[in-house]
């Protein structure tokens, strides 16, 4: 279990019960637990959707799509059952926020799922937890069982006449399954491969029924919005970027950890004040702002607000909130290789550009980093990434191509420093290259 960190600038919404024993249902109830569901039961579907829409809550998985809007796409009448899915397949390198939610506040997720169900007229929810989070599944399982035992789940929840069931499901260890349609395939017991869209999940999703799928953090935010009101939540962040965000600060930092900060919080401040800056007085080289798939920012590009729109303006993405900080001792080529090894390993193999492209990029980077690079490799890697970008079946190919292109564009000199058999300038002489 990771130690919790804190900082005075934090605005605790989703994390307000972290470290307070909220996995215990009684403790949870003492801290406004299940009040939001009961309030929502009296609100009516349309009011819930509007409340969430007005709160400015945007998908915390990475794409940043308006949650309320997403819910409103689900047809009111459907011949098949509707479903709510909680995407807890948190796998983006640099991201470790959902695990804290499952660990410390599992009932908030359950509450969020029920409220989403009320909003779209669904009676069944699934909570999909990343396979490697085996220990969190136990917590989640127990939370669901406890909720059933109190009648918060099952038939006639809270005496409302409304039924709601939640099932948990553990992943099998695939990053790809974080993609919503691949997650549905996985849930249905198939290979974790994305589906052709359209149709979109809101119309044809799990088992062919209309489906709402949200990130765990998104769903855990919902009860707070219902209780605190849309206006309160929206005002926590800048316009169109309502609320707070769990930022996962990692890398070369004095106090790495997950901090809940308002949307739009300054990145430089986040690194140097919240996380205490870089140890040993070393200089900052680069920041990956939103998980490994987002284009890297150079040290002079970090005076930006961490919200979806501002980061996009800076040429990167807010993504999953995984901020990875690299100091001057980091070899960008090695970092690019480490990143590509991940994507090569996680490519599902369905489409050509991602399957073949990630493998060639990895192979080339291995040789390149170990001193076997030739000049045309640099352009070739860029060309290869360009051929992947926007042409793959799902965003995984983009996730591999985008950072690679940014590394080459912004740190071309470092690549050139590896050429012609030169040893990696960042490796100690004679040190084996371990990646």
């Amino acid at each position, binding site marked *: 279990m990771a130690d919790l960190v804190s900082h005075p600038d934090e605005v605790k919404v989703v994390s307000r019960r972290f470290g307070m024993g909220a996995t215990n249902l009684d403790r949870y109830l003492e801290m406004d637990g299940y009040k939001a569901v009961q309030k929502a039961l009296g609100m009516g579907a349309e009011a819930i959707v509007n409340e969430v829409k007005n709160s400015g809550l945007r998908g915390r998985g990475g794409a940043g799509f308006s949650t309320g809007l997403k819910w409103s796409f689900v047809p009111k009448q459907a011949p098949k059952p509707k479903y709510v899915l909680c995407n807890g397949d948190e796998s983006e390198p640099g991201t470790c926020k959902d695990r804290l939610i499952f660990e410390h506040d599992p009932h908030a997720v359950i509450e969020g799922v029920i409220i989403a169900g009320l909003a779209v007229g669904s009676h069944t929810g699934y909570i999909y937890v990343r396979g490697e989070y085996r220990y969190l599944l136990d917590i989640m399982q127990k939370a669901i069982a406890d909720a059933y035992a109190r009648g918060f789940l099952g038939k006639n929840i809270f005496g409302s006449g409304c039924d709601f069931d939640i099932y948990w499901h553990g992943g099998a260890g695939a990053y790809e399954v974080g993609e919503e349609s691949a997650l549905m395939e996985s849930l249905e017991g198939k290979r974790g491969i994305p589906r052709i869209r359209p149709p979109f999940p809101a119309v044809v999703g799990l088992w062919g029924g209309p489906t709402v799928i949200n990130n765990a953090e998104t769903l855990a935010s919902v009860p707070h919005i219902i209780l605190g009101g849309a206006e309160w939540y929206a005002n926590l962040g800048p316009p169109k970027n309502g609320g707070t965000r769990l930022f996962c600060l990692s890398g070369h930092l004095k106090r790495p950890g997950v901090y809940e900060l308002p949307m739009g919080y300054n990145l430089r401040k986040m690194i140097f004040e919240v996380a205490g800056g870089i140890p040993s007085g070393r200089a900052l080289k680069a920041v990956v702002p939103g998980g490994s798939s987002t284009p890297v920012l150079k040290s002079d590009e970090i005076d930006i607000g961490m919200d979806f729109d501002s980061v996009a303006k800076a040429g990167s993405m807010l993504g999953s909130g995984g901020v990875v900080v690299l100091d001057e001792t980091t070899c960008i080529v090695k970092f690019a290789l480490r990143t590509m090894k991940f994507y090569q390993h996680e490519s599902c193999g369905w489409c050509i550009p991602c*399957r*073949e492209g990630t*493998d060639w990029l990895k192979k*080339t980077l291995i040789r390149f980093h170990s001193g076997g690079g030739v000049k045309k490799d640099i352009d070739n890697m860029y060309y290869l990434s360009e051929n992947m970008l926007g042409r793959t079946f799902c965003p995984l190919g983009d996730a591999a191509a985008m950072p690679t292109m940014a590394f080459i564009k912004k740190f071309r000199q470092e690549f050139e420093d590896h050429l012609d058999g030169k040893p990696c300038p960042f490796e100690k002489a004679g040190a084996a290259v371990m990646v």
Partner: protein
Amino acid sequence: MADVNITVDGKKVTAPAGTLLIEACKSVGIEVPSFCYYPNLSLQGACRMCLVKIEKMPKLQTACTTVIGEGMIVTTDSDEVHQARKGMVELLLGNHPLDCPVCDAGGECELQDMTFSYGAAESKYMEPKNHKEEQQWSPVVYFDRPRCILCYRCVRVCGEGMDVWALGVQNRGVGSIIAPNKEDHLECEECGMCIDICPVGALTSGAYRYKTRPWEMTHVGTTCTHCADGCKTTLGVRRSESGMEIVRGDNRDKSGINGDFLCIKGRYAFDFANREDRLTQPLIRKDGQLAPSTWEEAFELIGKRFREAREQHGGQAIGVVGSNRTTNEENYLLQKFARVVLQTNNIDHHRTADFPALAAALKGKPGSTASMRDVFHAPAILLIGNDPTEQHPLLAWQIRNNVRLHRAKLYVVNSADIKLRRQAAAFLQIPAGTEGRFAAFLAGDDSAAEGLGPVAGANAGESPAATQNQQTTLGGFREQVRGEQNLVIIFGAEIRGGDIASLVKFGSGVAGAKLLCLADYANSRGAADMGLYPDLLPGYHPITDSGKFHEEWGGVPQAPGLTLPEMVESARSGKLKALYVVGANPVGRFAIDPFVFSQSFVVVQDMFLTETTALADVVLPAANAYEKSGTFTNTCGDLQLVKKAGEVSGSKSDFEMIVRIADAMGADVHKLVPFGRGTTADMGQSRGAQSGEADRHAVWLEAHGLEPKMSPFDPTAILDEIQRLVPGYEVSRLNLVAGSDQHTALVGIATGAAQDPKLIAPATDNLFSSGTLGRYSRTLNSVMENHSRQPVESEVAAD
């Protein structure tokens, strides 16, 4: 559906709503490349070759998954699109072995074609390619893993098309690999569809691999000679020391009734033609032993003995047994020869279905038979008896894919739990032998319901329709089927005689119902249509009322002849002086005591020594259907061309042999085969229509107002007569010769007197066996052996 207007590369395109962009482009001749897209299989979007630019969309879109929308503006050939495709080919070639010079697919490889089109000549990678060892999955299926580009066509055609699901994908990412679902081998129907559909040389055929280069073969599109479904197959033929060798069977010509489909027999079991133990010279029994002889000696002897038998004992002392695998022209000629030259009606064949009863029952109901194409499009199908998966693989494919693609409703009535039950909306299991009674029940005889046994529901969960119909009762079943429209009623040999009339009666109460009777061999239907019966002339015309045939042929014996069992009895009593067996093995098939024929002069035309040739006085080496031209009629009545792939030295077509025997008997050959006037020169026509030379020659003759059929061995002369005299065969000759299937109407007519349902003996072959030709196929035998072997515990196929 309403039409949608789009613009592709500046061209206005109109297509029905719901059309995929890639198909809409194709309809106006704009080819959008793809590997994974395959018509009638599920969409993948995996190969990314079909990326096109659609206005208002930021990214390139896959044309194979995009449904056209009103006003859509599409660019299929901009620099951006071209670069995207080139990029894909480069990525594929990165790991694809460039062993094209030895690859089976070299020259007919879609990856080669794409590389040629989009140019990806520069290799950008320095690292070695990923290698994986080749695997053998079955006697006929090999998988060269590095060549695979993962288009998943094989997986889908096996699962969705064949409902076999023998293939899947293992591992992920760059390690993804197609693999059998059962350890290291295929447990499947060995149809080889996966090989045919593979765009590259990853899946190769055990029967063909490394034998030749595609461009060294001549490709002859003809009709398969195995079961009665009549698939079109393309034979890859090359010259060999014996004349020609068939090295491959595939379905590259997808215009046939089988579309994409071929089964194991059509794809591999042509190899009986190449066996060393094929007869290559006439054999005459001398001193009790069959000894090699010459054609002249053989014909002279047969002519003499047949003439003697006829002159001394009359036509009733001669028996003729025809074949289910000779062409219509040969069958027609044989019975004409029997009736006109031998002056006997003692002619029969191995009957596997009761077509005469169907013809009789359909009297006054023209257009009531279903074609093979109808089976793919009918909204509802009732299947009684038979197991098409085993005995009629194409029919099974048509039914299965009609249900899958057009949501046809399938009703299955069978004594066994046949595989097609999976597609059934309702399944009724009845005790074996009660199929006829069921037909009577359908026709309204409620008393027949007794003993039809308990009603089992169709497999739960297979389809929504299946579960709905779990509680089907016998009466409910009948009502449900009766409520359908344009129903195709398919029945096996279990239903014969009067029971067929019951089915027809039931069918007449269903709007637009059509019938389909299942026989067993490639030209079983043709044998019946052409009158290989002692009491029926061609077109099921009763012998007792021989009318136009009597006139045309100048006399037909009026009394019905002997059936096959009666001929055996006649021989036993010493009355049958001569027996002429063409392409059949009655002794083996019906376990006849060979000594029965010790008093008869027996002539057999066959490819191999059989139980029947063992007692023959003369054996003539026959060509098979791949070595001659003519027509076959499949079990539905679809007339199709049989094209000659080449000649094997030492054999003759049955057609030529019949004519030569007639000639040796002193008959007027010109009357028997109405060929061109005044000349007997073979101008090349007997070499077959596939021969360009002969074709050109025929065209030249036509153009000069001359008669092209100059040879008495030219079957088209008989086809003329068939089309003139056999009701239902008045189909378009142009379309027929062009290679299209032509459905012949089964024109109902009064039944003959001696039709006896007991004479029908179904072959009961399965997918891998057939008693006639299949037993000579090494490939079929190796597959059978492999399937009977116990599966061994071994490592899984993939890494």
